[in-house]
């Protein structure tokens, strides 16, 4: 199961993570986000050990969402060493997410 992060846990779970973290910014009212949920699970399993995958509810965590300029959901942001290094907007199939992650991380 992909775990949830919040405004208050974002620092410890994402920014200070020693592994790269993919954050799925989603909203409960968004259809494509629901569709992405199982895809994100699949990516998390495939990339286990290499990338940590978490989700963030944009309505409940406005601070983080504003900070990273989330203007459309779903948006996936990849963080490495506390910094955003890549962004994918909208629904994407697992393969595309995986290849984007590998590309961004050079793995």
């Amino acid at each position, binding site marked *: 199961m992909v775990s949830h992060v919040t405004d208050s846990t974002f620092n410890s779970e994402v920014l200070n993570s020693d592994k790269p973290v993919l954050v799925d910014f989603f*909203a409960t*009212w*968004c*259809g*494509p986000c*629901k*569709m992405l949920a199982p895809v994100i699970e699949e990516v998390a399993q495939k990339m286990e050990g290499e990338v940590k995958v978490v989700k963030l509810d*944009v*309505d409940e965590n406005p601070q983080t*969402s504003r900070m990273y*300029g*989330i*203007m*459309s*959901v779903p*948006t996936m942001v990849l963080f490495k060493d506390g910094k955003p290094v890549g*962004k994918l*907007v*909208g*629904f*994407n*199939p697992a*393969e595309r997410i995986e290849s984007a992650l590998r590309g961004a991380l050079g793995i």
Partner: protein
Amino acid sequence: MYDIAIIGKGPAGISAAITAHARNKKVIVFGGDSKKLLLSPSIPNYPGLMEIKGTEFVKRLNEHLASTDAVLSKKMVTAVYSMGGYFAIQAQNDMIEAKSVIIATGVDFKKSIENEDTFLGMGVSYCATCDAPLYRGKTVAVVGYNKESIEEANFLSEVCSKVYFISMTREPYNFNENVEVIKDIPVKFEGHMHAQKLILKNTEVVADGFFVIKDSYPLTSLVPGLDVDGPHVVVNRAMETNMKGVFAAGDVTGRPYQNAKAVGEGQVAALSAVDFLNGRDK
């Protein structure tokens, strides 16, 4: 899961739906009535229906479509994703799955605004209902090309503090108080990382988000990975595209832009989709 998702309810899409239904396929058709047909005063060259009025042709096509059990959705499709083995179709805020897709969206020569594609999802959106909650209490701008854009602007004005409406349509409007209408021509989006400003011919609009509401979307954002040639989808005689399971028919495949050609191609596309489905279910 549908067998065939048909994007477009013009003569090409409806023809495809009729043939797919005759072959017992589970079909969904997206889109509203063809504006081209509604605008045609009289059609002199459709065999058997001499000088039929465009509006009458739409009525008859819809009656024929209603006699099938195709599911109809008025929603605009914003994207089709290949999931490897099936397709995920995003229609505004709905996600629908289908084994094959027929693109029958007609042709549109309206140019996109400069940088519209670059900022799509980064401050530029094609769908108010999808993204409105993210702009609660903020300022947004709507570039409106059709009647629906007026409804979308009013919907946004209930959520946002201020809405600029850049009117590219002659449809009458009756806006809430916090909507300001701007009569000017959009030129390009500007911004750092995300769209922050829309430059118009005579003025500019600064907003937190921009909604472009129009009758069709660029093929490259509609179906990522699709082989296109300008405003057209590249197809062969079987109406197959470069993507397995994706077919196209009608004006979207190129000239001549004619009803009889659209109807013929719709049928071929449906039969090719049926072949594709039967082959893969074996």
